[in-house]
């Protein structure tokens, strides 16, 4: 039992120490890693646990970001109040859009989520008077008690993201979380044990959106601005990339994926503008050669070590065991 969470604790301690040994630039990168890790982990509730591919998850991320941005800039609402409000608005959005999405499965689910994602994008983009349209919103400044330096906001983000990830972990290990796995593995059977699959999928969709909204809410003050791009399909692709790179088969996969992806992006963009090219090649290589992502690869090479360290069982994701 102790071993199960040891790894997570080590990671947390590492996260506390790092900002003191790296430059401010990298503290910014670390903050971004954390925010996107929460975003990707929320995505994995739909993908890894429920077995559906949402290609429009950035819509809820963006709604969260804009809610916080708008409230802070236009109404001077304190950031701490904005965070739960962002979660609420993202959840509300998902309640409406998700109702329709869960009537579909597979490729049609993916396309509908993408279409809805684009719908949200266009609404934000075109509603110039309210959202600032193409220009986005500028001047979203973190509250005074966090100051202007990178470290305070980083630690604030660390706390919020850790709480968020713990919440997602608890949900994924609860009966509801196992019901999601059941729906993923055999939705039909799950109906026959008396579960209204569509309603459960809808709830999970909302939960995932709520935490994506929280991640988005953290992004605004971090970036000092928000733009409609946050909801476009390229942004929706990011959590998919991250989850696949890190490993869709366990809870920590998206976290590792975010670290790798964000780190690489920061590194590559500092000496070339062709990050799309590089990231495209990386993804293709990962999908073709490392279908389990980083964690999947490690699980294969060092199974006993991995089992001791992460405690994340094979049943937690789209397992690849030969049946």
């Amino acid at each position, binding site marked *: 039992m102790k071993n199960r969470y040891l790894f997570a604790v080590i990671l947390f301690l590492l996260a506390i120490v790092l900002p003191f040994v790296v430059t401010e630039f990298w503290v910014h990168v670390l903050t971004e890693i954390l925010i996107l890790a929460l975003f990707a982990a929320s995505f994995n509730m739909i993908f890894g646990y429920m077995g559906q591919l949402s290609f429009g998850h950035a819509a809820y991320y963006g709604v969260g970001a804009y809610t916080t941005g708008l409230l802070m800039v236009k109404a001077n609402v304190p950031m701490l109040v904005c965070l739960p409000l962002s979660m609420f608005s993202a959840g509300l959005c998902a309640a409406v859009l998700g109702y329709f999405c869960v009537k579909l499965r597979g490729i049609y689910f993916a396309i509908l989520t993408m279409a809805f994602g684009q719908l949200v994008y266009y609404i934000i983009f*075109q509603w110039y008077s309210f959202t600032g349209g193409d220009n986005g919103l500028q001047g979203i400044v973190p509250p005074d008690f966090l100051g202007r330096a990178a470290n305070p906001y980083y630690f604030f983000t660390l706390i919020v993201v850790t709480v968020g990830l713990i919440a997602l972990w608890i949900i994924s290990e609860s009966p509801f979380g196992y019901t999601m796995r059941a729906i993923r593995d055999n939705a039909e059977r799950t109906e026959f044990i008396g579960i209204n699959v569509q309603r459960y999928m809808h709830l999970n969709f909302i939960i995932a959106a709520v935490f994506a909204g929280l991640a988005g809410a953290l992004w605004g003050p971090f970036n000092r601005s928000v733009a409609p791009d946050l909801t476009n399909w390229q942004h929706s692709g990011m959590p*998919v990339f991250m989850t696949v790179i890190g490993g869709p088969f366990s809870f920590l996969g998206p976290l590792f994926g975010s670290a790798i992806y964000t780190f690489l992006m920061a590194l590559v963009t500092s000496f070339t503008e062709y990050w799309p090219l590089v990231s495209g090649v990386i993804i293709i290589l990962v999908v073709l050669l490392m279908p389990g992502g980083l964690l999947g690869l490690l699980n294969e090479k060092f199974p006993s070590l991995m089992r001791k360290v992460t405690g994340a069982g094979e049943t937690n994701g789209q397992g690849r065991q030969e049946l």
Partner: protein
Amino acid sequence: MDITSLFAQFLSGLTYGTILFLVAAGLSLIFGVMNILNFAHAALWLMGAYFSWTFWSLMQGNSFAFWLSIPLAGFAAAAVGWLIEVVLIKRIYKRELYEQLLITYSLALILSDTIKLTWGVTNKLVVRPEMIQKPVFIFGAPLDSYFLFVIAAGAVVATGLWWFLKYTRYGHIVKAAVFSREMVGALGIPIPRIFTWVFTLGIFLAGFAGGIQVPIGSVTLGMDTAIIIQAFCVVVIGGFGSLLGTLVGSLIVGEVMSFTILFWPEGAMVLIFIITAAILIVRPWGLFGTPMRT
């Protein structure tokens, strides 16, 4: 709003719809036969546009440069498409949905940057020959004379595809494959070879559409991201794997865009998405698609 302007709007929508049709036809065909959603389709369309500009620039002395560059663009794009299919797409036939989507999505990223590397960031313009520089008047409504060519080209391609699917042996195989790949394979027809040719054909259409697009305005980076989403909407509305569906879908999208811009410019795309979402909810296989394909 008088009749002439409305008619002009209609023709403009028809033209845009034709371009969409040419882009979406390949997308629909590829998905219908191979069950792969080609995210990179619009990037190849854009590449076709750039190819066309290059050919036109190279053939400056030739009086047919303008007209030749368009089909040549199609062939050039098709060559790239063939290479992509053989090297990459072949490996993902049996992969999971998310893997296929990620691969074509990454391909789109790679191709976009490749275009940037090859042709740079400046707009590319093609100069039209004399005869299509002035507008033509149909029932009093002015129409860019080039648009006539576009619509005609679209009609020719649509007819050609229809004839191919209905009357040739290969066309029958393709149609059958849309219904059931397994059956076609069981009949001893090599599926991988069909896939390669269908993919190549689909990309030819995209490249050709790119070539046609160039004289309408200019060619710039980023045009593909706008059109790929619209092409998806067309295919969803019309139905995957259905030629008629793609035709109808592209006309619907073209005209809805054209007319909505008149009274609600911001809302044009929003309306398209609402229609697309509605179709997905009520009839996911589209207006003319095959229900079995879920």
